[in-house]
C-alpha cells in the first residue's frame, strides 16, 4: 500500500491519452480505442486488487464476517 500505485495509474493514464491522441492524428481511430480499452483494463486489475484488500481490511477491523 504505497504511493507508487498512484503514480503507476497516473502514468498509464497519461501514456494511454498520448497514444490515443497520436493514433487518432494518424487516422487509426480503432487502434486508439483499443489502446484506451487495454489501459482501462490494466488499471482496473490494479484497482480491483486494491479494493479487495481494502474491503478485507474493513471487514477484519469491524468483525463483519
Amino acid at each position: 500500500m504505497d504511493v507508487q500505485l498512484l503514480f503507476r495509474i497516473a502514468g498509464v493514464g497519461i501514456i494511454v491519452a498520448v497514444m490515443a491522441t497520436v493514433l487518432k492524428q494518424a487516422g487509426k481511430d480503432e487502434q486508439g480505442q483499443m489502446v484506451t480499452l487495454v489501459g482501462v483494463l490494466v488499471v482496473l486489475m490494479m484497482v480491483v486488487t486494491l479494493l479487495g484488500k481494502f474491503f478485507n481490511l474493513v471487514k477484519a477491523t469491524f468483525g463483519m464476517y
Partner: protein
Amino acid sequence: MPAARGEGPVEIVQIVGLGLLAGMLISLLRQHKPELAMQLSIAAGVMLFVLMMAKVLRVVEVMQSLATRAALEQAHMDTVLKIIGIAYIADFGAQVLSDAGEKAVATKVEMAGKIIIMLLAVPIILGVLDAILKLLE
C-alpha cells in the same frame, strides 16, 4: 494512550500531501481520460482510508474496553461495530459513484446500506422496546 513515534503531526502532512498529489493527477487525467481519472480517485480514496484504518482499529479497541467495563452485551457491541463498517463501505462507494457523476446508482448504494443497517439494528431496537415495556409494568 500516548502517540507512537512518527504519528500525529507527521501523519497529517503525509495525508494532505497524498490528497493534493492525487487531486492534481486526477484533474490532469480528467481532461483526457475521465474513466481512468475515476479509477485513480478510487485508488487514492482507498489509500487514505487504509492510512486511517490503523487508527480506527485503536479507537475500536478503546470502545471495546469501555464496553466491557460498562458490562455491555458483547453481541450489541459487535452489531454496532458491524454497522460502522457497513456505513464506511457504503459511504465510500456512494461518494466515488457520485464523484463519477452516477448520482442515481450512488443513491441506490446508499439506500442498500441503510436497509442493511436497519436490519442489523432490529435486535437492538427490540431490546430497547423490551426494556421500556419492563419499566412500564
